């Protein structure tokens, strides 16, 4: 029977029920590690906001508060050989990559907290010697693509990286992170189009936090669910609860497994909410151009609290242990070190100590490395 064009269409959400939940296979230790990583990401943000307010940092701070589950849940299942391309709001992703419980490991396929802090502080200890700001770092050896400010522009680069990897028999995937705002860019669609033609293992994660700087998603996208964009390419579009680290893990792992098996790209839309302004310069205005009720509701489902509930119901966390560190629901001003596990505070302290003791680059470095010296 042919559909009558007047017939109301089915709802367009492409939230596919998963055949299985990969997170069911995670051990207690792994789940607790992901929980700790949420604290790590939150503490990084809280501490940097405090440092910035004390005038110790330069540059714009793009808070990842309330969006930590997307980073932790998507990165946790990766192999060391996999690539990522984080964006401005994903600063913790640089050290969360390949962390997996080995926080002090010398050799891992992610940045050390020292490197990340040196970058934030603008010191030579940064992987890019502080030549571009904040999140615009990366590392070829750690398999992190360096982003620019032109968002969605890393998706074609990701496609090229995995194309090269596949030509050498590798099975690396690349996770590219994007906001919902950049899905309006032509390159977003052009790159997924190319990746799909070649069945490249590129997973486009869309952190739909409802706001692209000062523009709500309703003004930037004709589709409510960005995952629906996948239909035009004939690829899966998964919707994850961006506040639930295990749901993100499930959807991303499913997309990754598919990509690694040679079946091509997916889009994983993670529904979330931007807690503060676009950057810290925008915090005050963001409380005006956004409805107070919307902000209150958006922050209500804190990823740390949701993870804690899951762990208690899985029986991985006792009721007593669950109450030890309550960081959720606290703004950077309210939160203190006592709200976080001590190893989390120590981890970042180590990074900050390295950063503040790392010198500024020599001024003349500003003129260096425009070209590689000719062979």
């Amino acid at each position, binding site marked *: 029977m042919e559909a009558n064009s007047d017939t109301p269409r089915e709802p367009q959400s492409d939230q596919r029920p998963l055949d299985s939940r990969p997170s069911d296979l995670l051990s207690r230790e792994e789940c607790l590690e992901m929980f700790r990583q949420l604290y790590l990401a939150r503490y990084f943000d809280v501490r940097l906001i405090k440092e910035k307010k004390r005038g110790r940092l330069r540059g714009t701070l793009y808070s990842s508060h309330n969006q930590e589950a997307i980073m932790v849940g998507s990165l946790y299942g990766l192999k060391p050989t996999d690539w990522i391309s984080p964006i401005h709001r994903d600063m913790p992703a640089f050290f969360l990559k390949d962390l997996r419980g080995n926080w002090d490991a010398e050799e891992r396929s992610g940045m050390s907290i020292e490197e990340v802090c040196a970058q934030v502080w603008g010191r030579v200890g940064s992987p*890019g010697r502080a030549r571009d700001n904040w999140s615009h770092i990366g590392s070829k050896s750690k398999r992190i693509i360096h982003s*620019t400010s032109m968002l969605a*522009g890393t998706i*074609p680069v990701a496609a090229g990286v995995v194309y090269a990897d596949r030509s050498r028999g590798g099975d690396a995937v690349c996770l590219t992170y994007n906001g919902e705002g950049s899905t309006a860019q032509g390159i977003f669609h052009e790159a997924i189009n190319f990746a799909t033609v070649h069945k490249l293992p590129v997973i486009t994660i869309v952190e739909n936090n409802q706001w692209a700087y000062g523009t709500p998603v309703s003004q930037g996208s004709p589709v409510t669910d960005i995952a629906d964009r996948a239909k035009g390419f004939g690829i899966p579009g998964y919707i994850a609860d961006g506040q639930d680290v295990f749901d993100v893990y499930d959807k991303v792992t499913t997309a990754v497994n598919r990509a690694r098996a040679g079946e091509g790209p997916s889009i994983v839309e993670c529904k979330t909410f931007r807690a503060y302004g676009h950057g810290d310069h925008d915090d005050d205005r963001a409380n005006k151009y956004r409805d107070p009720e919307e902000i209150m509701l958006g922050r209500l489902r804190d990823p740390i609290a949701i993870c804690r509930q899951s762990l208690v119901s899985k029986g991985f966390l006792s009721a007593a242990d669950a109450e030890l560190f309550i960081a959720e629901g606290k703004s950077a001003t309210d939160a203190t070190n006592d709200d976080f596990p001590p190893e989390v505070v120590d981890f970042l302290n180590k990074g900050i100590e390295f950063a503040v003791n790392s010198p500024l680059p020599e001024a003349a470095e500003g003129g260096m*490395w425009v070209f590689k010296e*000719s062979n």
Partner: protein
Amino acid sequence: MAVMEAVAAAKSDAPIAKNYLTAIKEAISEEMTANPEMIAMGEDIGLLGGAFGVTDGLLNQFGRERVIDMPISEGVIVGSAVGMALNGKTVMAEMQFIDFISCGFDQIVNMMATYHYRTAGEVNLPVVVRGPAGAYGGGALYHSQMNEAWFCNSPGLRVVCPSTPYDAKGLLKACLRDGNPTIFFELKELYRRSDIAEVLPDEDYTVPLGKAVVRREGTDITLVSYGQNVYHCLLAATELEKVGVHAEVIDIRSLVPLDEETIFTSLAKTNRIIVVNEAPMTCGFAGEIISRVTTKAFDLLDAPPLRITRLDTPVPWVKPLELYVLPSVEKIVQAALATVKY
């Protein structure tokens, strides 16, 4: 077998003069043979062999993994080339017409050009973006551009523009081995010109970047150019010779890096200079050369340096309009005579 023998015989008896297009084709093919990590990509470059046939035969020679028919997206062509180079490949990325490069502009100037700088030297991107450029063929606004100035103004890019088959082959090879991202301007009106075809060395060779060449020696005035305008300068020099003016013609070949020495050495002899290019005048590369002359070699000048460029207009379609806005032999001769008499 008979064909092979005929080819061998032709090769041994009389060396074959090769045109500009063949020279470029050979450079790509030879580099891909020597470097298994090299990839060629672009619109219609495989099955079709390229809109102009530059990549004809590559697909059969190297297969679909290394010769990629890309979707029509210059942004993805450049962006994925960057990704491949980031992960160990050398990439030749063709723009079907250099005019279309604007669709990939962000990936070129923000992603590719800055990568080495941003990473304090950790990442080198051996990517050559090349394509047919230039006017005089009735290609109209979007198949005639010379937009080299955009890229000269974006630090981190080599910008190269050969005028002869020998240079086209040698410079393209040099660029592919250089390790820096390059925008390589080819003149489509030169692709099949038989009068500039030349015998190329059998052995592997490169032409160094940043080295200009004197195409004709003279003592009275220096004409500096690149690309197909070099031939306008040479014809103008022939005309000028008839009235006793000996013009020296310099082909800079690469814009970034620029060989200033060869220009200043010539100027020390002639004390007069005209720079010719077919891009529009304002903020064009002719202006850059003259700026360097006036700031670094002012004492050598006996007359105001001049620019002969396209008018500050797009390139119009029909012949009279097109020729009206472009540099010509006539315009160069007139300007040279005025400069000599100054």
